[in-house]
């Protein structure tokens, strides 16, 4: 899967392997969000875009 390949490449280049558990947890939550909600809308604050 292209996404996983890109993500792995990014973690390797940046040497940020400690982010893996956070990302996995988020993806689990993400699945729930996708299953339960409509469109995700970005809040209007600069830095979290």
């Amino acid at each position: 899967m292209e996404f996983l390949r890109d993500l792995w490449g990014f973690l390797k280049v940046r040497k940020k392997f400690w982010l893996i558990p956070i990302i996995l947890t988020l993806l689990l939550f993400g699945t729930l969000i996708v299953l339960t909600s409509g469109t995700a809308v970005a809040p209007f604050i600069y830095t979290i875009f």
Partner: protein
Amino acid sequence: MVEALLGLSAYYHDSAAALLVDGKLVAAAHEERFTRKKHDSSFPLHAARYVLEEGGLSMQDLSAIAFYDKPYLKFERLLETYHGLAPQGLRSFLSAMPVWIKEKLFMRKMLKDELKKIGSDTPQMLFPEHHLSHAASAFYPSPFEEAAILTIDGVGEWATTTIGRGRGNTIEMLRELDFPHSLGLLYSAFTYYCGFKVNSGEYKLMGLAPYGIPGSEQTLKYKQLILDHLVDIREDGSLLLNMDYFNFAAGLTMCHDAEWEALFGLPKRSPESDLTQPYMNLALAAQQVTEDVIFLLAETAKNITGCNNLTMAGGVALNCVANGKLLRRGIFNDMWIQPAAGDAGGAVGAAYAAWHIGKDRPRNNPARPDAMQGSYLGPRFESDAVQRLSKKYRAKYSLYDDFSALCTDVAKLLADGAVIGWFQGRMEYGPRALGNRSILGDPCSPDMQKKLNLKIKYREGFRPFAPAVLEEDIGEYFSLDRPSPYMLLVAPVLESHRKQVPDNYDQLQMYDRLYHQRSDVPAITHIDFSARIQRISRSTNEPFWKLINAFKERTGYGLIVNTSFNVRGEPIVCSPADAYRCFMRTEMDYLAVGNYLFKKEDQPDWEEKENWREEFQLD
């Protein structure tokens, strides 16, 4: 066979698309102009379709698509910031994450899905960093073979400010300041505190600053409080924000209001409420601190690059007051600023970065005066579009065979005090209307500033207007010895055009000061005798030059008021139909589209089914 690249900026704010063919910028446009939604952040489908059409190309002709930042790097910043601040920021985290998990983490797929609506073949995709895109948009289209590059904005992935050096087809990044320490976000915090919208009201804060009283006890106190408590500025221009006062990293506002109130002794101003002198002084103090940092950064850029020329981009580079002062400081021999310095310009920068860095294509002989072609990079409309709108709205017009005759008549109408919508040629790229989608007025008229603000643009009365001045006449009115084709430099109106102000000028109420006749061109002379200048060169925009020249022949003045063709909260008009609607909704007197002239009195009654003022959210 040509080699073409599509640059894209999307999903944050101000989406745009740009097309580079064999290294030449062919077209660029903001998505908001097509969708009529200000700062539209959605995928720039209309803009991408347009730029490909302008280049006579389809998706299969593209050799690469360049997106203007690296989404994973931005995601890394978000996770590390929330991790570092936990448990603070939970609400912000929960608001931000769904967007990422559902959409932005899958950016490549999302882009491909959108691009399929334009054509089936998606070429190679490249993701230059946000500030590299800004740097590329600043250096590659500039007229310089070698230059220092300064990019300053709110934040990209991690970087908020960078200094680099451009030489030939290379860009070398030399210094970087990272989030949360950001000059752009500091300015946005003051924008927010003074009651304006973040990401769009920054130029209002800049316009408000000259109403502050320089040297007054309160302004000096505010500036000292900023330097003592909010920001630690180092000799090289780098800065550290005191995050005890700022909430943007973990919260949903820019600053901690209670802490700011305690510090400045001034409550946060409610949007649209009256502007009082303390807010003007605070705006001035914020502007002065911003300028000080920019000057230090420019000196550092000069020291570490040794270059004689400077190029700039990023949202802070739209601060034309600071730009004008930086130029007058003489740190660099010359400077060039990308006209679309904000995030929309990232589309152009990403395409240039992909061409020169990604594909290692040479940069032979930088274009003169620059490669932006006056920033007239958007769509043009032929007379059939005017005919169609005329049929649709039963609009009455006069059609001129001779454009010079139209200019003569419009010049006379302007001199008689009329306000004219002026729609010609290709639409501008960047936030400024540069004479192709403009509303024009007489700069000598004492009540033009008030009329334009309150009856045409429906915006705050304090806001200034800019002059478009003939290239040949710029030295007659302003203290500026450089070209300023993109309205990005502010310079003083010459003493010879100024009028005496009363001794108690600074003590007068805001509107008494504003409506005092400060010069013989009062509509474009700001409260501090400054003006945001656009120089019109005959070789870049001949129709606009001809009109101003006709005005000069009639009045003796080689300049006119030029403001963007829109009302408050509306994107600048794109098509003749947009222009006609805006014309009919406001108290504009005439509309010129190509060789067609519409007179308001001759038009049928304008009936709107919905309240159009609700269509555009106030900016």
